[in-house]
């Protein structure tokens, strides 16, 4: 047989490609459920490690059953729209909740282009009874996506913990955002500057007495700056529930009751007008 004829070549390559594609399709559909489960587990793990749940001495506990921990520590999940309004509150079956299913990448695109938002928020109770809110963030690093979770304590400004991950930052440089020495710096930082709400600053020597600053990574200025931007962009929307809920607790004495009521009224009017 002439293996160099055009007909033979075309038939040969077609058959080969169809066979290979069939094998890959079968294997892919067989392994898909396991792969999705792995990705979900990873997401649950990140959410909890941000709030220091399931950690031993600041390191992930290798033996922890993260899906059990997730269901026993998370108390509710919901999504925020671009006006900072809550919706889709889930108090059980969190893995199926809208917040958990939300795709951070498409949210990031919506933030950039001003579309409709469904920003996920998780609320959890720690082992010591403390309430925390966990906020995801997502942005563009130097080479690819960077994302992470930031947990904020019940006072709505002190950071309980943070965790970050990246798709393809340089190992040893930008990739260090995923290392404990870097994200553990966020613990106990305050989302406040001069009494105003402020996102975290990631700057050279940022930790020097700056309550909302952490040290940038040397040799990875662009990744550090991108992470700062990513957190700030997302915090801009989360600010709505972080600052609003502080004001709505007059007992804390932050705002005189009358003013708070006025503010509340103004807010109600605004939301009526918006409708």
């Amino acid at each position, binding site marked *: 047989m002439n293996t160099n004829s055009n007909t033979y070549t075309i038939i040969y390559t077609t058959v080969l490609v169809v066979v290979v594609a069939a094998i*890959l399709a079968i*294997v892919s559909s067989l*392994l898909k459920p396991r792969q999705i489960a792995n990705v979900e587990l990873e997401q649950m793990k990140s959410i909890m490690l941000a709030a220091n749940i399931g950690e031993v001495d600041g390191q992930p506990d290798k033996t922890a059953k993260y899906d059990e921990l997730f269901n026993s520590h998370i108390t509710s999940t919901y999504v925020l729209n671009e006006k900072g309004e809550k919706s889709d509150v889930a108090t059980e079956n969190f893995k199926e909740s809208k917040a958990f299913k939300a795709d951070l990448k498409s949210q990031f695109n919506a933030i950039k282009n001003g579309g409709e938002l469904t920003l996920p928020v998780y609320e959890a109770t720690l082992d010591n009874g403390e309430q925390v809110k966990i906020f995801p963030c997502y942005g563009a690093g130097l080479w690819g996506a960077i994302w992470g979770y930031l947990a904020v304590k019940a006072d709505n400004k002190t950071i309980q913990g943070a965790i970050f991950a990246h798709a393809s930052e340089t190992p040893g440089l930008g990739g260090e955002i995923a290392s404990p020495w870097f994200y553990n710096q966020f613990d106990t930082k305050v989302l406040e500057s001069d009494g105003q709400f402020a996102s975290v600053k990631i700057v050279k020597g940022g930790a020097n007495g700056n309550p909302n600053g952490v040290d940038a990574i040397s040799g990875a200025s662009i990744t550090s700056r991108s992470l700062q931007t990513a957190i700030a962009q997302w915090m801009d929307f989360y600010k709505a529930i972080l600052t609003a809920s502080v004001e709505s607790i007059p007992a804390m004495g932050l705002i005189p009751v009358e003013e708070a009521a006025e503010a509340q009224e103004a807010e109600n009017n605004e939301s009526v007008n918006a409708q």
Partner: protein
Amino acid sequence: MLNKMDKDIYKKPLFKGNPITVLVLGICSSLAVTVQLKGALVMALSVTLVTAFSSLFISLLRNTIPNRVRIIVQLVVVALFVILIDQVLKAFSYDTSKMLSVYIGLIITNCIIMGRIEAFALGNKPWPSFVDGMFNGLGYGIILVIVATVRELLGSGTLLGFRIIPESWYVQNGGFYMNNGLMILPPMALILLGCVVWVHRTIDKDLQEK
């Protein structure tokens, strides 16, 4: 099953014809995945499986492959095995898959595989081709493991994630020891690889260029 001449098939790639240190193939991934021993072992195993099975398949098909499209046909077969390994790792060893990230997919472009198929599998029977592919993968793996052992031990003080250098030796715990940060950066892998080539050529003088 292998006669005397065939013994070269598995002896050569491990030492005298090592794909990395002598043929200088597959350097890129050997720099990228040798920060930790675990990653290096999985990578070595993956490359060994891919070279062995794609050599076997190409050798089985060798008389039917149209000559003009043989590189494409080889690529399709290699890609099939690489994607299978990638999918299996994602399903059963997610952490390793994350650690190796793009480098599993990049096995497709590993010069060793295409090199062995072109140079050996296309002209030899399936069994010797399989053995040749496997031992070339192992030859690659040996170097990966050597470099990764040094890098993980000196760079992180652990091996396969287990602590080898006691915590109490470290400066922050009042000791005298510090991890060598240079070890975890890619340039150090190249320097270590250079050292391996140097040792290799010192042992086997035949390899030295005149």
